[in-house]
């Protein structure tokens, strides 16, 4: 076992999540167990409504599971959040209208009490990393959707999180932009080397990005299969055209037909 040697960063054991209100009860997730090693890039893949966002929010300590346990570096998810281990990128960029791009990126740094000169230096670095040099003094609404999402990524990376949680960050973008941003994300990850949990409903996106894909099925949300992606890195345009890539797509698509 290659992964067993590595330090398990995120461990979920029999996690279940039930949303209950007065009127109804939704069994969103049931018996989810998985281990993600430090530095891995994994995807959570499944049709909409299968509990991907719920799972991500559980890992991020935005909600608490109704059963099972979540450990991050051996501690609770709450401790991980308080230790500022998470960088989160939501489906929408969630930029603050009243802040310029550079101020949005610096927001987590302000929370951490980083000095202004240091913030400036880091923001300049991050703008370069997400290839938005020269846009620092723009307001969010002056940027395209893809650029806004890159700002959100830079903001999430600014606190140098050990874990990057991304919830369908590119699903609102057209396919050309999305494929370009996928490649950019991999090159950023190559430089930052943190653990990434990436939620998507696109089979090809999950394969292109990940070391491993967790396939979820709905009603209730369960892990239906786990697929290792042995495609060599760095991955690029050619990866998408390789027979191995198509084989993996067929395999994962097949796993859905069984459901």
């Amino acid at each position: 076992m290659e992964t067993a040697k590595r330090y398990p960063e995120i461990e979920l054991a029999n996690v279940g999540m039930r949303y209950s209100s007065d009127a109804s009860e939704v069994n969103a997730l049931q018996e989810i167990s998985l281990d993600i090693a430090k530095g891995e890039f994994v995807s959570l893949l499944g049709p909409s409504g299968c509990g991907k966002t719920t799972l991500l929010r559980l890992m991020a300590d935005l909600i608490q599971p109704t059963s099972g346990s979540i450990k991050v570096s051996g501690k609770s998810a709450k401790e991980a959040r308080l230790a500022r281990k998470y960088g989160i990128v939501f489906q929408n960029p969630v930029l603050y209208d009243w802040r310029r791009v550079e101020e949005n990126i610096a927001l987590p740094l302000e929370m951490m009490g980083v000095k202004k000169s240091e913030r400036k230096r880091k923001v300049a670095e991050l703008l370069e990393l997400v290839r938005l040099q020269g846009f620092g003094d723009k307001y969010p609404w002056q940027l395209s959707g893809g650029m806004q999402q890159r700002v959100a990524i830079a903001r999430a990376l600014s606190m140098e999180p050990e874990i990057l949680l991304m919830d369908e960050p590119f699903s609102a973008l057209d396919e050309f932009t999305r494929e370009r941003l996928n490649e950019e994300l991999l090159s950023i990850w190559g430089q930052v080397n943190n653990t990434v949990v990436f939620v998507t409903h696109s089979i090809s996106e999950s394969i292109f990005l990940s070391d491993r894909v967790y396939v979820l099925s709905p009603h209730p949300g369960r892990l239906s299969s786990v697929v290792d992606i042995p495609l060599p890195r760095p991955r690029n345009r050619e990866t998408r055209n390789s027979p191995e890539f198509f084989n993996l797509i067929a395999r994962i698509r097949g796993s859905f037909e069984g459901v």
Partner: protein
Amino acid sequence: MKGLRFLRYGRLLPAMAWGLGLLILWEAASWYLLQVRQVPLAQSKLPYIHEVLSAFAEYGDTLVQEGAVTFGNAGLGFLLGAAAGALLAILMSLSKWIEHLAFPYAVASQMIPILGLAPILYGIVHDERVARVLIAGYITFFPVSINMLRGLRGVEPSALELLYSYAAKPWNIYFKLRLPASLPGLFSGLKIAAPLAVTGAILVELMGARHGIGVIMLRNLYYGPSHTYMFWSTVIVGALLGVASYALIGGLERLIAPWQPEFRDKGGDRL
């Protein structure tokens, strides 16, 4: 520069055209009432604009002086009322308990007609200045409080979760998110309240004061037809004070919260 051009073509030109058209129509209607229909007291009903303007020129000093007194009192009351309203909004947003305690009274206070409240208040404080300031503040308080509270509360959940994920301290959540997000609401409250505060101050003046535009308004009304033009001048000054207060707040908003959708440059001038 872009902003100025927008002002010139987008707003000023149509406004001037409207203004000019209105003036011509007014003069014509006034002439019609006086000369053609020969209505009794025609000039009191619709005076010649040029006569009003000449009264304006003749008594300009007095009008400006008295107008300034009214504006000063209204302004002071407005500031106090706005501060109290903002403070209450913040307190109510911090605690549901305070909201349940204060909100019904805030609403009930708005049920008391100003026309009745002003003389009562004047009877209590016996000071024309204090009474004006209090009424202006009283009028300002409610719209500011309600609109700002909505802004403080109406923060997007994901914007809040973002800060939660940074383990942000409560004061950071307030200063970095809730307060900036409440600015549009605060300013719409202020813009509603500003002209009302002026009106409120004038109302108190009508009930007895020594200075203020409302005082000479009343005096010239009593003097009858001979003072018609002066009376109309005071009415116009009152209206101008209201417009000025609104414009002042609007300008302030552009300075403090310029990031709002309505201020965004659409690209290209609207001609």
